[in-house]
């Protein structure tokens, strides 16, 4: 029932089937066997090889707008005679490119290493009746592979024979789909006896199977077994015959299997999604701003070029006698000259898009991420692991999360079952024993109930464990009636020492109660209901006694059903149904899949922070539901909307039924939330009204409806329902379906930021799909994740405190950078030759200042700010989740704040320029009547600029550590020192000694001092004023809003 289109995105469907020769032995000469080519068993996750690294990496890097732009600018500077030196833009670009290349190369080397580890691991292949040790990557389709207990299957195998005589083996697929229970797989019936090297080698058979496809639960194939002088026997193969790569063999000594899918064609590899580079919303904002600035840049350059030529159309402006053109300039074509002028303007303005910003942002992210791994509150004493940061690119995204997708088992829960209590015939017993999740539990249960039965007369169950193991030996296990989700119960048939045949059945109350004597239910039911209310998983236990005749008959039925080739499942189910009837209820147990520490509090905090929490699990619906209740994802007042197989049914009409359900829910929700739902998007989630439960098969029905086109809008309706529910639970999800859900939410309107957290390999695809992936430390998911934390509870601090701070820091960093670079430098530069002098392209400042500006004078304060700033302290952030909503929707990088910063910069540019312009109406500013020239003009403007920009940051800093003091005042001191130094020496390597003593002269002029102080003050004045106004307003708001606010946070 799973989706057929699961792997649409990564897997191209190939028609036809593949034929595999078992052991590569040709079976008959008559069959024309066309050798098919299959890929080898090598896993490749690396991106580069030694040879293609350089070109491929460079190509990828220059695909970024910014890098490409800088490259162009650099080339223009090299080719055309431009006002600034190519070194100014070439050096930083080279630096950025190199650092990135090294980083990516290192990451790829790690991938290579990990690939090798898997590809070179040893496996045993049977060749010529001998066991041959081979490297995993050498396995070819058709090889017979031997796998021992607790080993992982190296590729997808058809199960041929096992060490256990009945031809079964137990397998755990925890790393594939997260289900940690043991599954039984069956060998091909006719080959079960071939359980030695020699015999297996004699097998002559071909396997025909479908081409690889990613659905883990689907497999169709046929095996043809050839025996000498006999017609070949054909047996059908199903998923129960297929052992998947990545799964682990358990409780079985060894098995033989033949490889059918290898390497990148295994189901696991097909389920894996390439780790694509994740881009944060901040980076997208930067890119948007960049595009805007590029447009400004282009228009500026165009305007400047036009103005220049209009101005130059007057011959005495173009070439006055005092300023003749060189021969080369005269000879150049006019169009070409215009073009080079245009390019020169572009280059002159290229500081608009600062390379240094990228360097600073990268550094901030890299250094900033250490604070996450250094956080001792996210260190777990038990597993001795702290948080781990795999990608530093997404720090700020942690502050923007809107949807949290979490795995259940192992993430919300500890994945260990704890026995809470049991009741036997209405008597309640309580102990504290714990059991591990796994098959042992099932046996344990079955066994235990025997004990219960056994011990019933004594009415005491003091040490069940003590009795449990010894008593195990005293029974002979005859049959296991396996668990399946439809029956939702399992049974064992045993023979006691005394020869009594007993059947014990355990299962969900809903499936047991109808099958026992009605009069026995009453007492137990009360217990069960109470336990269920408490969020425990309840199991009811019943028994039945057989006579020998009855047993013989059952035995026969079971064997028949098991061997059936067609409709095996159905037949089995029918037999089970017959057997498990008219039982006697013994009692019920309550176990708790213990929730992780503070899981419920964390979920509440996330809800309060305006995030929506979805639980995606491969687990059963009932279990998942009870967990959701336990961790308060669903609360008692939550109205649950169910879209499950149970509700929809399994009949032909299920699509119609689904349609009805969808419509009904949709209508219901629409009434609840009238049209203004846009505003509600992240509003306070006060009362959790609706929760949605959906399971995998229904989901696939919705997402991939059968040809009926009218149902194609299911998806949108479903999405609308989902988005209006505060909590969503998706159960029985395949790994790719988890990713599908994430992708679906991700691509909704407004593209919300999603976060996935999980611990198993089944979560890897959704971790990769989400904007931010969080793995649990120490598990394999952490390797593919962007961050890893030891416990679910650490999500709270990670998002609410770290995420919030990182976002505020980087947003401020970006805005500040655009502000300080673009506006200040360029506005002044631009104006210098537009309205007043309209002269050719001449930078206002000395080249050394230009280069140093971003690198030395103003970079460290903002870096320190972006690492240390805590505008609200961490404790407050963690304890008040509602603060998180303040920065939601990328609030600090929207156009409004962007415009504010731009106007601020424009204003300051105007102030600087016109202030100094008016000052220079009379350029004798010293008391000796000597005059200042254009370099003094530039230096004054630049000094004001450096001081204003730094002091602006000082105004914004709310958290002054000694480091902030040091870098802010240090930068200013350095500027002054540098200016003296730079102007104090005749530099032999410079062609022009422009700055010689310019700064020193400026400092001796009182007028210059007065002007600098005044202009800095005017520039900062609007900012101060704004802060004061905000402060007054906030004070007023706090007074009115504080009371309900605090109340609210206590409630939730």
């Amino acid at each position, binding site marked *: 029932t799973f989706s057929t289109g699961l792997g649409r995105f990564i897997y191209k469907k190939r028609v036809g089937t593949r034929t595999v020769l078992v052991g590569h032995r040709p079976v008959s000469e008559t069959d024309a066997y066309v050798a098919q080519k299959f890929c080898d068993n090598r896993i490749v996750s690396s991106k580069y090889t030694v040879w293609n690294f350089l070109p491929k990496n460079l190509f990828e890097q220059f695909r970024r707008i910014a890098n490409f732009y800088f490259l162009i600018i650099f080339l223009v500077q090299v080719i055309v005679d431009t006002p600034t030196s190519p070194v100014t833009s070439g050096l930083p670009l080279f630096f950025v490119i190199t650092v990135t290349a090294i980083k990516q190369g290192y990451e790829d080397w790690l991938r290579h290493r990990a690939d090798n580890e898997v590809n070179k691991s040893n496996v045993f292949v049977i060749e010529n009746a001998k066991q041959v040790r081979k490297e995993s990557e050498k396995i070819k389709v058709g090889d017979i592979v031997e796998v021992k207990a607790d080993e*992982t299957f190296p590729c997808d195998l058809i199960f041929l024979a096992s060490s256990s005589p009945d031809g079964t083996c137990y397998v755990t697929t*925890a790393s594939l789909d997260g289900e*940690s229970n043991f599954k039984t797989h069956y060998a091909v019936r006719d080959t079960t006896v071939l359980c030695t090297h020699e015999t297996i080698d004699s097998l002559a058979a071909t396997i025909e199977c479908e081409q690889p496809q990613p659905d883990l639960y689907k497999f169709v194939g046929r095996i043809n077994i050839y025996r000498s002088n006999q017609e070949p026997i054909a047996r059908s193969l199903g998923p129960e015959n297929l052992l998947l*790569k*990545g799964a*682990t063999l358990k409780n079985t000594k060894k098995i033989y299997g033949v490889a059918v899918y290898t390497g990148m064609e295994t189901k*696991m*590899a097909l389920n894996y999604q390439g780790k694509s580079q994740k881009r944060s919303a901040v980076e997208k904002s930067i890119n948007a701003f960049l595009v805007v600035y590029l447009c400004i840049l282009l228009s500026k350059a165009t305007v400047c070029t036009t103005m220049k030529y209009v101005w130059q159309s007057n011959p005495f402006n173009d070439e*006055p*006698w*005092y*300023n003749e053109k*060189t021969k*080369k300039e005269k000879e150049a074509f006019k169009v070409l000259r215009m073009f080079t002028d245009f390019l020169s303007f572009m280059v002159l303005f290229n500081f608009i898009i600062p390379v240094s910003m990228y360097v600073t942002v990268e550094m901030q992210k890299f250094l900033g991420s250490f*604070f996450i791994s*250094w956080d*001792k509150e996210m*260190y777990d004493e038990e597993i*001795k*692991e*702290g948080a781990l940061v795999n990608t530093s690119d997404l720090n700020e995204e942690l502050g923007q999360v809107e949807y949290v997708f979490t795995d259940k088992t192992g993430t919300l829960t500890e994945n260990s079952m704890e026995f809470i209590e049991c009741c036997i015939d209405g008597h309640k017993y309580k102990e504290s024993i714990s059991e591990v999740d796994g098959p042992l539990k099932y046996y344990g249960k079955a066994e235990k109930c025997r004990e219960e039965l056994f011990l019933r007369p004594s009415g005491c169950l003091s040490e069940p464990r003590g009795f449990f193991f010894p008593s195990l030996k005293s029974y002979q296990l005859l049959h296991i009636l396996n668990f399946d989700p439809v029956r939702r119960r399992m049974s064992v048939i045993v023979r006691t020492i005394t020869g009594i045949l007993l059947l014990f059945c355990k299962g969900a109350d809903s499936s047991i109660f109808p099958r026992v004597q009605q009069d026995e239910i009453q007492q137990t039911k009360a217990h069960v209901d109470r336990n269920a209310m408490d969020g425990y998983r309840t199991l009811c236990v019943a028994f039945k006694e057989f006579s020998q005749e009855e047993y013989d008959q059952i035995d026969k039925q079971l064997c028949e059903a098991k061997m059936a080739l067609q409709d095996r499942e159905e037949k089995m189910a029918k037999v089970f149904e017959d057997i498990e009837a008219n039982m006697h209820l013994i009692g019920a147990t309550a176990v708790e899949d213990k929730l992780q520490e503070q899981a419920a509090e964390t979920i509440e905090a996330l809800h309060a922070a305006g995030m929506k929490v979805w639980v995606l699990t491969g687990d059963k619906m009932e279990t998942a539901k009870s967990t959701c209740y336990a961790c308060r994802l669903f609360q008692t007042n939550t109205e649950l909307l169910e879209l499950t197989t149970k509700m929809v049914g399994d009949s032909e009409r299920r699509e119609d039924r689904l349609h009805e359900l969808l419509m009904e829910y949709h209508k219901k929700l629409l009434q609840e939330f009238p049209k203004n739902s846009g505003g509600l998007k992240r509003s306070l989630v006060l009362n959790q009204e609706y929760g949605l439960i959906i399971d995998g098969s229904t989901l696939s029905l919705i997402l991939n409806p059968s040809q009926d086109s009218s149902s194609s809008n299911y998806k949108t309706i479903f999405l609308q329902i989902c988005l209006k529910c505060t909590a969503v639970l998706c159960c029985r999800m395949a790994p790719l379906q988890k990713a599908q859900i994430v992708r679906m939410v991700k691509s909704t309107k407004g593209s919300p930021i999603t976060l996935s957290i999980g611990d*198993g390999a089944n979560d*890897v695809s959704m971790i990769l799909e989400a904007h931010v992936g969080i793995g649990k430390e*120490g*598990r*394999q998911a952490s*390797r593919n994740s962007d961050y890893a934390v030891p416990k679910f509870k650490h999500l709270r601090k990670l998002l609410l405190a770290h995420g919030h701070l990182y976002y505020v820091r980087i947003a401020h960093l970006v805005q500040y950078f655009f502000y300080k670079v673009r506006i200040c430098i360029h506005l002044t530069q631009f104006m210098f030759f537009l309205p007043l*002098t309209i002269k050719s392209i*001449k930078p206002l400042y000395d080249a050394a200042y230009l280069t140093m500006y971003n690198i030395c004078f103003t970079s460290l304060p903002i870096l320190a700010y972006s690492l240390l700033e*805590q505008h609200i302290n961490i404790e407050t952030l963690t304890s008040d989740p509602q603060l998180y909503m303040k920065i939601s929707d990328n609030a600090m990088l929207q156009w409004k704040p962007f415009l504010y910063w731009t106007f601020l910069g424009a204003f300051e540019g105007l102030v600087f320029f016109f202030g100094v312009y*008016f*000052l220079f109406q*009379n*350029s*004798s*500013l*010293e*008391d000796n*009547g*000597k*005059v*200042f*020239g*254009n*370099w003094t003009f530039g230096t004054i403007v630049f000094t004001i600029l450096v001081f204003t920009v730094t002091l602006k940051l000082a105004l914004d800093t709310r958290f*002054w550590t*000694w480091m902030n003091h040091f870098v802010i005042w240090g930068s200013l001191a350095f500027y002054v020192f540098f200016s003296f130094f730079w102007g104090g020496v*005749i530099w032999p390597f*410079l*062609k*022009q*000694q422009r700055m010689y003593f310019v700064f020193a*002269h400026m400092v001796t002029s009182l*007028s210059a001092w*007065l002007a600098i102080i005044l202009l800095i003050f005017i520039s900062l004045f609007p900012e101060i004023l704004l802060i*004061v106004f905000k402060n007054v307003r906030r*004070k*007023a708001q706090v*007074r*009115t809003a504080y009371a309900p606010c605090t109340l609210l946070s206590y409630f939730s």
Partner: protein
Amino acid sequence: MAVNYSAKEDADGHPSGGLGAAGGGAAKTRKPDNTAFKQQRLPAWQPILTAGTVLPAFFVIGLVFIPIGIGIFVTSNNIREYEIDYTGIEPTSPCNKCLNVSWNSTPSCTCTINFTLDHPFESNVFMYYGLSNFYQNHRRYVKSRDDSQLNGDNGSLLNPSKECEPYRTSENKPIAPCGAIANSMFNDTLVLYRIDNETRIPIHLNKKGIAWWTDKNVKFRNPSGDANNLTALFQKTTKPVNWPKPVYMLDSDPDNNGFINEDFIVWMRTAALPTFRKLYRLIERKNNLQPTLEAGQYSLDITYNYPVHSFDGRKRMILSTISWMGGKNPFLGIAYITVGSICFFLGVVLLIIHHKYGNRNTSADIPN
């Protein structure tokens, strides 16, 4: 493709797997240090700009800025300044005949302008020439110089920088000083007379001390060699195209000749704006009893060499006294007074708002 590696590392299924070993060994290193920096708990000053702290600051700034502004304004107003435009655009102007001079016109055109000073100039008087619509800040112009040549480097003297093009060589000889700036050096001669009872008394104009000390003594140097024989030093070079005479004949005083001629140095400090003034001469005060320039009739003799009409420029002669803040410029004073007043005014407004807000707020609490 970590999915694939995973199974074997999956700690769930293998309690005895690598996790225990790895955990034990790494435990010491993995545990984060409990330092203030790493836990982001550095002691910090957390300032909050409130109305309470900013309001007094506004008043203080207002109270400081306004007096400063008044001081500057008064100082600026006390500066005497007199300006004559001697371009000769108007047909009535005595210099009108010289309007279309070219560089090499011989004999040079001269004209005389009479003017009257209504008020005496008490302290030292500074004589400037001013040019308008002259783009000394043009990029091609600004960089058209060779500072190492001007610094006395013999190599650069004979092989000037490429930046000097097209004023680098002339008649196959290197130009000294090369470049557009030097080539276009201002070469009008201005002589000032006081007319006392129909007699013209020349006023002593000091041509030294008009350039920056560092420029005169460090940045500009004649080529090394016999300082008394500049002609020999510049032997292999030629004069800039527009100059009537070579650089070693700028002045008779060897301390003011060649590259260290102060008029030349002043010219070489390019102006920031197209309308600019440059210091030309100093008129020092003789004694304390007499003003430097008394009120009365004066006449200015101009040797008109410098053509500005072709680029629509203007030439001016400016006489000015100087205060501690430099020449006359009302801008700073007015700006200080304005900003101070705005600060003060906003302080008052904010104070009122602050008080009103507080009062209204307490009363508004109840209905909410």
